[in-house]
C-alpha cells in the first residue's frame, strides 16, 4: 500500500469530520449523518465480498444482529466493555459466516442460489432469536444506561457515535485499498471475472472466497455492535432482511468493485439523503415513498447502466477537473 492510495481516504475523512460542525451539531442532522456513515461502512465492507469477489451476499443483517446480540448480552449480563464486546461480536459473526459459507462454497452455490441461501440465514437467525428466550425473546432488551462513559461507549447525543463510525469507515476504506493492492485482491477479481478460469490458473477459489467472506463478516459484526450501542436495545428485528437488501442495493447502484471504493460512500450519501428528504416531506401522506425510491433507482440503474454509477462519478470529476485547469490555464 502506498501513501498515494491513502490520500483520498484522508480527504474524505477530513471533510466528514467537519460536517457535524457545519450543521451546528443539530441532533436531527447528526443522526441523519450517523445513519449515512453506518450504511457507508456497511456497503464498504460488503464491497469485499460483493464487489471484489462478485458474490451477491444478502446476509449482512445476520452479522449485524449477531454482533449486536454478542456485544449487548456481554454488556447486560457481565458488564463487559464494548471495547471487547464489539470485536467479540465480529468473531461470532465470522464463526457464523464460516458455518454457512464453508459448505456453500464447498458445494459450489453461486449467483441466485448464494443470494437465497444468505437471505434465508437472516430469517433463520431472526426466528431462532425470537424463540431463544434466555438471550433474545420477543421483548426488547435495553442496554444499561451508563451515559457519558467512554468505558461503556454510552452517550446521550449522536455526535460521539458519528465519530466512532467515521473511524470505522476510515478503517474499512483502508482495508478495501489494502485488499485491492494485495495478491488476494487480484485473486478475487479473477474469481469475479470467471471462476472456472481462475481455478484452472491455480487460484484456490474456495479459500479466497471464504477469506473475503470472513473479512466482510468481521467488519459487519463489529458495525452491528456499534449499531446496538446507537439504538440502545436488542431485538430480533435487528436481523432484518431489508437491511441486507438495502446494503446490496446501495452496493449495486454504486457499482461495487475494485474501482468503486470511493463511489460507494458517495452513492450512499446521495441515495440516503434523497430517500430521507422524501420520507420527511411526503412520508406522512405516502408511507414507504422512500423505499419505493430504492426500488426505482435500483431498477433504473440495472436496466440502463448495469455497471453502476462509479464510472459516472469519475467522468463527472474528470470533466470538472478539466474545466478548472482550462480556466486556470487561460488566466495564466
Amino acid at each position, binding site marked *: 500500500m502506498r501513501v498515494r492510495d491513502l490520500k483520498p481516504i484522508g480527504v474524505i475523512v477530513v471533510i466528514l469530520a467537519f460536517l457535524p460542525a457545519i450543521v451546528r451539531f443539530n441532533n436531527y442532522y447528526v443522526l441523519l449523518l450517523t445513519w449515512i456513515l453506518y450504511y457507508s461502512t456497511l456497503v464498504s465492507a460488503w464491497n469485499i465480498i460483493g464487489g471484489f469477489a462478485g458474490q451477491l451476499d444478502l446476509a449482512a443483517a445476520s452479522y449485524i444482529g449477531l454482533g449486536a446480540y454478542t456485544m449487548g448480552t456481554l454488556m447486560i449480563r457481565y458488564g463487559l466493555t464494548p471495547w471487547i464486546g464489539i470485536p467479540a461480536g465480529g468473531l461470532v459473526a465470522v464463526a457464523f459466516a464460516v458455518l454457512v459459507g464453508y459448505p456453500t462454497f464447498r458445494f459450489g452455490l453461486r449467483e441466485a442460489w448464494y443470494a437465497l441461501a444468505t437471505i434465508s440465514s437472516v430469517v433463520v437467525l431472526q426466528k431462532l432469536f425470537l424463540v431463544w428466550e434466555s438471550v433474545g425473546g420477543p421483548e426488547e432488551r435495553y442496554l444499561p444506561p451508563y451515559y457519558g462513559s467512554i468505558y461503556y461507549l454510552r452517550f446521550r447525543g449522536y455526535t460521539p457515535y458519528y465519530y466512532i463510525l467515521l473511524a470505522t469507515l476510515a478503517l474499512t476504506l483502508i482495508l478495501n485499498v489494502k485488499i485491492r493492492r494485495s495478491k488476494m485482491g487480484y485473486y478475487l477479481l479473477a474469481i469475479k471475472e470467471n471462476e472456472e478460469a481462475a481455478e484452472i490458473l491455480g487460484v484456490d477459489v474456495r479459500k479466497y472466497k471464504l477469506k473475503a467472506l470472513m473479512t466482510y463478516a468481521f467488519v459487519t459484526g463489529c458495525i452491528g455492535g456499534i449499531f446496538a450501542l446507537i439504538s440502545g436495545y436488542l431485538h430480533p428485528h435487528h436481523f432484518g432482511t431489508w437491511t441486507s437488501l438495502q446494503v446490496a442495493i446501495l452496493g449495486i447502484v454504486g457499482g461495487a468493485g475494485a474501482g468503486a471504493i470511493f463511489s460507494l460512500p458517495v452513492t450512499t450519501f446521495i441515495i440516503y439523503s434523497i430517500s430521507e428528504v422524501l420520507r420527511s416531506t411526503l412520508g406522512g401522506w405516502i408511507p414507504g415513498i422512500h423505499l419505493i425510491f430504492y*426500488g*426505482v433507482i435500483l431498477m433504473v440503474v440495472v436496466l440502463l447502466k*448495469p455497471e453502476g454509477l462509479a464510472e459516472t462519478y469519475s467522468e463527472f470529476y474528470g470533466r470538472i477537473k478539466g474545466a478548472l485547469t482550462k480556466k486556470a490555464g487561460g488566466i495564466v
Partner: protein
Amino acid sequence: MLELLLQNLVNGILMGCVYALVALGLALQFGVMDIINFAHGEFVMIAMYLVYWISLYLVIPGSVTSLIVAPIFFVFGLVVYKLVIDRIVGTYPLAQIAATIGLMVLLRNLALAAWRAQPRGLKYEVLRGSISLGPVVVPISRLTAAGVSIATMLALHWFLTKTRIGLALRATSDDMQAAALLGINVRKMFAVAFGLGCAIIGIAAAFIMTFQQVNPEAGLTWGLISWIIVVMAGLGGVSGVLFSGLILGVVEALEITFWDPRASLAVMYSLFILILWVRPRGLFGRR
C-alpha cells in the same frame, strides 16, 4: 398429543398443496427461461390485494374472483415481461437478481403506499365452516384451496404434455437453441410462460384469501416458500412441485406440533439451505 399431531398433519398437507400451487408459477418461469424472479412473493401479495378489492366492490365471494384475477394477472405477467424481464433474460445473473429485487422492493412499498400496513381480510366469503372427521376438524376453505390446487396442477400437466404450445414450452425449457432452430419463437414462449405463471398466482391468491389476510409484508414469506419448493423440486415437472409442497407442509406441521410455531420459518429455511448444499439439483430433478 396424537390428536394434535393428526390435526396439524391434515392442516400441513392441505397447506402443502397450496404452497405447491404458489410455487408452480415460479417453477414454470424458472424452468422455461432460467430466470431468477425474486419478486414472485410480491406478485402473490398484489394478487391477494386484487382479490380483496374486486370482492369488496363487486360483492362476490373471494373464491369466485379467481375467474377474474387469473386473466388480469396473465396480462400483468405479459406487461412485466415486456417492461423488465425481456431486457434481462440471458444477461449475466447478477443483473437478473438485482432487477427483480428492485421490482420486489418497488411492489412491496407501492402496496404499502396505496393500501397502508393494516391487514385486510375478505368481508364476504361462501367457503365457511368446517367438516369434522373424528377428532380432526377440516376447514372447508382450506379443503377447497387444496382441491383447486391439485386441479390446477393437473390442468397444467395436461397443458404441458398434450397441447402444441405446452410441448413448445417444454422444448424451450430443455434446450433453448435447439428449440429456436426448430422454428419455435423462443421470446414468445418466454412471454407465455411468464404470463401463465402469473395467472396461476392469480388462482392461488383467490383461494389463499379465503382463509388468510393480506398485508404488504406478506410477499416475503410466499416468495421464500416458493423458492424452497422450486429448489426441492429441481426441474422435475409438475409432480415434483406437488411432492415438494407436501413435504414442506408436513415438515411445518411436525415443527408446530413438537417445537415452537414461531420458529417454523427457521426450520423451513434451514431445510432449504441444507437442500441447497446437498442436492442443488433438487430431490426430483431430471438433470
